Structures are given as C-alpha cells and as structure tokens.
C-alpha cells in the first residue's frame, strides 16, 4: 500500500518540479540566449528545442528510475525514500542546468573570438 502511494507521489512531485523549472528556465533563458548568440541567431527555435529535450530527459529519467522499485514498510521510510529520490532528481536537474549555462557561455565566447 505504501509502495503505491510512494510511486504516485514521486511521479507527481518530480513531474511538477520538472515542468515548473522548465517553464522558468524557458522564460528567462530566451533573453540570455539572445544576448550570448546575438540577434541573428534563431534563439527562439533553440530555446524551444532545448525545452523539449529537457522534458524528455527528465521525465523519462524520473520514470525510468522506478525500475528497481521501492521497499517501504512504514511512514518514516516513505518520507526518507521519497525525499532521497526527489533530492537526487533535483540535484541532477541542477547539474544539467549549470552545464547548459556553461555550454552557452563557452559557445558565445567561441563565436565572439572567431
């Protein structure tokens, strides 16, 4: 019973976080891209494709990471497992986010210096 509850909550929480973060990044990322790549670059297209890829990777990974299953006996274990799983997804998101910022920064430097 706890397992089913945990799966449901896990999927709901991770999808909510993924979608919300994606929306925020998409909103302010467009401006950042435009600044870094210049006005001529197709920033909106890049931005939309990035959002699409991001959703695929994250929701896909969140769902895939259920493959080993939860073994939950009581409410405290439910809390622990749920938090640790969600926390690792959020950390993963953070790493991807910083890699993204760094990539665009490096790309823009290459553009400007060449």
């Amino acid at each position, binding site marked *: 019973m706890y397992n089913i509850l945990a799966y449901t909550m896990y999927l709901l929480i991770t999808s909510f976080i993924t979608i919300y*973060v994606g929306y*925020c*990044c998409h909103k*302010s*990322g*467009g*401006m*950042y891209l*435009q*600044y870094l790549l210049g006005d001529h670059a197709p920033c909106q297209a890049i931005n939309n494709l990035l959002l699409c890829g991001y959703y695929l990777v994250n929701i896909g990974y969140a769902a895939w990471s259920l493959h080993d299953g939860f073994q939950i006996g*009581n*409410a*405290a274990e439910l*809390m*622990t497992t749920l*938090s*640790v799983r*969600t*926390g*690792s*997804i*959020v*950390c*993963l*998101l*953070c790493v991807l*986010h*910083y890699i993204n*910022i760094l990539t665009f920064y490096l790309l823009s430097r290459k553009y400007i210096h060449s």
Partner: protein
Amino acid sequence: MNTQISLLAYFIYLPVALGLTITVAHQLFKNGKVFMLDIFHQQADIALATNSLFKIGFYLLNVGFALTIIRMSAIVNAESMIVKLSTKIGGFAIYLGIMLMLNLYLFMRGRKKARQHQRELNKLFGTSKGIEFE
C-alpha cells in the same frame, strides 16, 4: 513509537531546511541584482534574466542537497531526535553559508572582469567612441 519520532523529525527538518534555503536565496539574489547590472553593463533585461537563471540553479542545488541528506538513523527517543536534528540542521546551515560566500565571490569576480573589459575597450577606442566601434 520509534517510527513516530522519526516521522516527527522529518516533519521538523523539511520545513526548516527549505525555509532556510528560500530565505538565503531571496537575500542573495535580491542583493545580487546590483552585481548583475554591473556585469552586463547596466542592461537591465539580460541582467535580470541571468539573475533568475542563477537563482533557479541555487534553489535546485540546495533543495536537492537538503532532500538527499535527509536520512536520519537510530532515532530511539526524544533526546536522540534533538541531537540528530540539530546536527543535521547545523551542518546544512554551514553548507548554505559556504554556498552563499561562493556565489558572492563569483559575483565579485564577474564584476571585476567586466570592469577590466570595459577599461580595455576604453583604452583601445578612446573613452567616448568605445561603444560605437564595439
């Protein structure tokens, strides 16, 4: 009994850790706007966009870390709960402080770089026409 005390510990730890993260991020990025404006040469829209991107990153990193370290073992009574909880929250607060300083250092460094860049441009193209040539 044991399960209930653990559950109580988790229910105290989560709001405290998340509240700390939110407060620190709010303070940091409210004051970080000034640095961002300097880094992007007073262009408000791009400075605010970058500020919010870094804010998202900061929230993700710290909330993720707070959730990942939640596991508290061997809570048998109220005393051990208080000890464990204090250790956890204290450790997390120290970690947050280090992150805050690191972010501040990055802001300072970016600002220094931006000023250097501006000075070089001014030297190359003369003070008044620097922007036109660029």
